[in-house]
């Protein structure tokens, strides 16, 4: 009995719990100091945040809703980073998914029978595919021309942002009345169902959590997952063992883009139901903090995304109660990222840094 518990304890690895708690505690303290310097009462603010995020079932439901894009984009980032690919492009891939879903929902939907059982899966499917293909652009540039994916994905984010602008601001997807820079509402049979109306909790949350479980299985229990992690932890050794870095780069970029694209499509078909400028308030960048806080583990990403969803709904409540701008969430996200680097994850990056062989 006792040895069993000790074994279990060893398997869980204390760092998995301690480091994130340390990171979060430090980030909350730092933010409290910033609030004090700005003459806001941090205790009052945090209290408002907690009650705003978890106060009652409706508020908690809203937190779940806000967590979904963080989870989808976070999974996208986690898969890419696991393979040693610095995909900063989740933002663009998310937008492309939403754009294609809008195109389907406003232009193609009339050709489909008016039932969500056919239209919704097709819509999410092509948006996922589109996100994956958008993700393949930096992948091809990397394997064929040696282009650093950090720069190419940042640039492609802006291409995607302006592509969305082109389509809905004076382009073919702008609303029929041409009043504002937004699309028409998608057809009703493309709405991703909400589970408990009038709450906004929708099927997308279930899809995202299921995906997190599937990805965890793929990553830790399949040959493909093993290859992917091997490339991420030591490309030279992986290649020597006969694992093709090129194939894994292409595959992982496709998967990463597809996840983000699906995230965009879910957000669009379940919540906003139309596309507008600034559709994403930087989900793709925040996702980097989500994934790193979860140590790039898809299952832990669920918890990290929930936390970031709570920060978002909490920040609205802080704004109402103590008057601090809700953009304070960005400060929180940034401090979390900096403490991720400052604390335990340093070892992770040291390992990565030394694996950048000069032959790369």
């Amino acid at each position, binding site marked *: 009995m006792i040895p069993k518990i000790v074994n279990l304890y060893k398997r869980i690895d204390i760092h998995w719990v301690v480091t994130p708690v340390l990171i979060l505690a430090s980030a909350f303290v730092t933010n409290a100091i*910033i609030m004090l310097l*700005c*003459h*806001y009462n941090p205790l009052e603010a945090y209290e408002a945040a907690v009650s705003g995020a978890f106060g009652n079932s409706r508020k908690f439901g809203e937190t779940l809703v806000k967590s979904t894009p963080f989870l989808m984009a976070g999974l996208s980032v986690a898969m890419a980073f696991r393979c040693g690919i*610095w995909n*900063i492009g989740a933002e663009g891939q998310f937008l492309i998914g939403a754009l294609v879903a809008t195109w389907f929902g406003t232009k193609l939907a009339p050709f489909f029978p008016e039932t969500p059982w056919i239209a919704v899966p097709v819509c999410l499917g092509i948006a996922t595919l589109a996100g994956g293909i958008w993700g393949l652009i930096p992948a091809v*540039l990397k394997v064929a*021309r040696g*282009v*650093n994916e*950090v*720069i*190419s994905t*940042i*640039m*492609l984010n*802006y*291409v995607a*942002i*302006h*592509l969305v*602008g*082109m389509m809905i*601001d*004076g*382009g073919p997807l702008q609303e029929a009345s041409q009043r504002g820079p937004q699309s028409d509402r998608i057809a009703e049979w493309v709405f991703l169902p909400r589970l408990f109306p009038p709450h906004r909790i929708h099927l997308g949350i279930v899809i995202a959590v299921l995906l997190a479980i599937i990805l965890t299985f793929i990553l830790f229990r399949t040959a493909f997952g093993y290859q992917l992690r091997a490339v991420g932890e030591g490309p030279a050794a992986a290649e020597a063992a006969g694992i093709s870095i090129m194939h894994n780069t292409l595959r992982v970029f496709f998967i990463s883009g597809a996840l983000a694209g699906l995230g965009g499509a879910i957000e669009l078909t379940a919540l906003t139901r139309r596309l507008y400028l600034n559709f994403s308030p*930087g989900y793709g*960048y*925040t996702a*980097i*903090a989500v994934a*790193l806080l979860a140590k790039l583990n898809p299952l832990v990403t669920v918890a990290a995304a929930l936390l970031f969803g709570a920060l978002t709904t909490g920040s609205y409540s802080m704004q109402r109660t103590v*008057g*601090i*701008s809700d*953009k*304070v*969430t*960005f*400060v*929180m*996200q*940034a*401090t979390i*990222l*900096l403490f*991720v*680097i*400052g604390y335990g994850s*340093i070892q992770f*990056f*040291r390992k*990565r*840094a030394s694996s*950048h062989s000069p032959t790369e």
Partner: protein
Amino acid sequence: MFEDILSATIRGATPLLLAALGEVISQRAGVLNIGIEGMMLIGAFFGMVGSFYTAEFVMFAPWFGLIVAGLSGLVAAALFALFAIRLRGDQVIIGTAMTLLALGLTEVIYQRLFGVTGIAQGVPAFQQLEIPLLSEIPIFGRALFSHNILVFIAFLLVPCVYFFLYHTQQGLRIRACGEHPKAIATVGASVLRLRTMCLLFAGGMAGIAGGYLSLADVPYFTPGMTVGRGFIALAIVIFGKWHPVKACGAALLFGLGSALDARFQALGWGIPYQVWLMLPYVLCLAVLAGFVGRAEAPFALGRPYGESE
């Protein structure tokens, strides 16, 4: 019309050029500073604040604002250096954190100081300067020589940075630091100190570029007012192949793009104006892919360096 476009091109290119000159230096030393967008935003905000609180001294306020802008960029870069160079964290992640931090912090403080609607509209700003005689040259005189002083400073800095980088010992060391840091360590110089200095310079320049936006381009600050200009500066550095003079050319090209964008929008030509907005990023990708001449990044770019190695 021509005069207008030329003048708008130069005005649009200036903040991009200021930020890009700093970024050229930091990337040549091996530090990939993608927090440049955030540093610009911080500069824009604190520059405006500096000018707002010294507004009684109208002549002096914009200068004070500009100094504050530069210093705030410098502080942001120091934070970056602490994590990227001292702790050897990943530069991409720190850069992302920097940009998020700037987005949040500037808006939180702005709302605290000036409220949601913003009472800091119209702080003292840099005035148009007419260079005597030169600005009277017909056709292009006014377009080239009638700007605020920061425009002239930015373009005069181009040969300075070029000379520094290619014709001084420090410049040589910086370039070596980005290609083969070990060599620098062997001759007894500190890679870490050199990189920190370059990063601080980049931060200061990004701050000043931000200050240009809120003290010369327009006399006020709006949250998120850099709208991706930092990333365009990043594209310029690559499109300009990490060379200050070529970067200046790239900045002018993208300045022209933004000048034309406004006019095409008014003319209602067939091309959607977003095509012009996309252009810098697409061109940057084309250069990286080697479709428009091959660009070689500094070899050690983005890699943390340990003194023990």
